[in-house]
């Protein structure tokens, strides 16, 4: 059993928008080397949960711990230990990808040489190197998504949060991203990825957490969720849980 704290531990997370309780007591954890799929219908509360964990939204109740750092008490330490890819990337359109990544490296206080090497290596792998000196304003959706992924991976955080990261990616880039996530997990990092693509979750994730109306309605490995019916797909399980609601 690892003595180092897990990349993510969330307990009793609550977040409201006015009278609407978007996240109603969510508890989940992501372990070392684990890729966790975060599933749920539209409006289930996935994005709100991820943004609370990333520190972009303040929870109304609950406890978030990122690699041992309490997000409420030590926000800077916790934020230095996570990388976040939002559904709509936060990019400076008038900077080039290289300039943007150099700025992000400065935000995370990365050593200059190492940051540059890491950025170039990721740009090459995601096939952005040739366009990386062009300003981001003309990038396609997929190119913007890839830039955001590189920015999140730049400081090799213990926890990686991704909100619909495959939006706009071509098949080659999708494969590369999945490889990068597996490598990140293999190096001991944790990944929490929200997606609507159940087949991707089925093949990529070690475990899934299913959310409905702001509550976790099921979580576990695929085998655990299938129960006694080993021939059922994740889609079958997801739809069945939806009906039970």
């Amino acid at each position: 059993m690892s003595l180092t704290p897990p990349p993510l531990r969330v307990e009793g997370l609550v977040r409201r928008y006015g009278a609407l309780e978007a996240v109603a007591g969510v508890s989940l954890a992501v372990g070392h080397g684990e890729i966790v799929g975060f599933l749920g219908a539209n409006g289930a509360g996935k994005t709100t949960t991820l943004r609370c964990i990333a520190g972009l939204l303040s929870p109304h109740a609950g406890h978030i711990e990122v690699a041992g750092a309490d997000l409420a008490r030590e926000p800077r330490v916790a934020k230095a230990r996570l990388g976040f890819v939002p559904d709509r990337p936060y990019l400076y359109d008038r900077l080039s990808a290289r300039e943007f990544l150099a700025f992000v490296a400065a935000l995370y206080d990365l050593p200059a040489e190492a940051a540059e090497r890491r950025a170039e290596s990721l740009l090459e792998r995601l096939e952005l190197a040739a366009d990386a000196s062009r300003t981001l304003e003309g990038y396609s959706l997929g190119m913007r998504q890839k830039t955001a992924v590189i920015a999140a991976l730049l400081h090799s955080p213990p926890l990686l949060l991704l909100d619909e990261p495959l939006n706009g990616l071509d098949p080659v880039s999708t494969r590369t991203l999945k490889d990068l996530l597996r490598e990140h997990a293999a190096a001991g990092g944790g990944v929490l990825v929200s997606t609507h693509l159940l087949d991707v979750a089925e093949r990529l994730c070690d475990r899934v957490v299913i959310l409905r109306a702001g509550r976790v309605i099921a979580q576990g490995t695929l085998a655990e969720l299938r129960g006694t019916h080993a021939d059922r797909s994740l889609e079958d399980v997801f739809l069945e849980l939806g009906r039970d609601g």
Partner: protein
Amino acid sequence: MNHAAIARTGWTLAHRSLWSGGRPRGGVLPVLLVLLLAAASTLALVVMFGSAAAAGVPPAVHANLLGWAFTLAMLMLVIGDLHAVVSAAVTAPDLDLLRAAPVSPRDILGLKLAATLPRTLPPVLAIALPAVLAFGYVNGLPSLPVLLVALFGLWALPLAAGTLLAIPLLRLAPAAHLREPLALLATLAFIAGWVANTFWVPRLARDTLDLAAALRALPAPPEGSPATWAAHAIAGGRGAASALAGFAGLTLAAVVAATAVASGLLEVVLSRGTGALSRLTHSSARRAPTLAMAFLRRDAALAARDWPVTLDALAGLALWTLLPLAILPLAPLAPLSIARDMVIALSVSLGHDLAARALPLERDSLAWARLSPVGGAAWLRLRALGVGMAALGVVSTAVLVVALAFRLPLAGVADVAVYACVAAITTMAAGLLSGAAFGESAWTDPRAMLAPGGRLVSAVVSVALAGAWLTLAHRHPSTPVPPLTALGMLAGAVAFASIPLAFAARALERREHAGR
């Protein structure tokens, strides 16, 4: 296309922007401002036309004045409408939805031009209508059909011209690149009109006794201008009927031409894509040695590449600095006093045009202030460093220029520099707070980077702070401030500035990013 259903949807959207959930919404403020401006314009123009009539100025000269007012308004409207057409007709967020629907390009154009009403109608309601009402109050109102034709033409002609001009421009460059420069051009046109008015009105007031002579000397507006025809039609008398017919005919022809030509070309322009194009950069992408250097490098790149914003800010800075010169004919001041007034007036722009835009300039990427381990307070300090460096350059240049222009002695230069610094420190701190509290991340117009209410608050606070420093400066108009007092003023300004800066840091720390 079901026109009734489309109109109902438009009405619902418009209604909800004004009133929804049992309370007024953000859209109410611009409407109130237009009404206020219309009332103020009507009052001022009634006084002017009334004074002119009392001074024995004949009605023909009144018609000339009306013609010039319409000409100026129309020129400003053409440029403003050019921007409105590009923004509403080509870069509207619902454009893809409309293009995918079985709706003809002509109908799309019609729908989008109808959507420009909130932006294209206010100048007609706040400038042209008050001019007509004031003219009519003194000289008699025109008949209702004439009034309606004139007002419709004053709205439709510039919009048609803007539409006809927009399409060839859009063939040259993508809409995303055109939109901001056009907004800047529209602003500059407005400012040019404002400056002309600012310099002209005090001189008229000074020459009150010669008002009749001054107005009689006013040249007639250009005969071939439709604005002049509209003025003749409203003024009545000989040739009014033919002026009205010419104006109505030209309006109709322009609307038909804009509809026929623009709707045909719209699809061609849209098929080229409206998004921005990448630009190749040559600056170093190496990681900066310090976080402060990284911020400064980023700020420099954003300022250089977001050049419409930079140019707009520079125009604001120059105009505010020159503003005190407008009152010179009315109240001659000592050179030291006018130099102080100029640098204090500059501080209004430093707060409202420069500092207040610093945070919204980052758009959605401001989320990094919360996402990264830097923290909101440090982010604000680093952003303040960037605008502070820019302001230092501006203030140094301004002090140097006024010192040379007014041949100030060394003590006078130091005095002006102290006033420039204290005023800039306070207005810029307040400006940063306005930006943190009211910044709009989805802005498209460089002058609308704050919410409408925020713009008003920012301007009022900057003017009030500058006013306080002006009051202090005018207590000893010709004596340079002693060194100890100067130190006290600087300490006071820094102490004052720490309050809005602390609130701005708090606002940035608490600003949530729920996504769109």
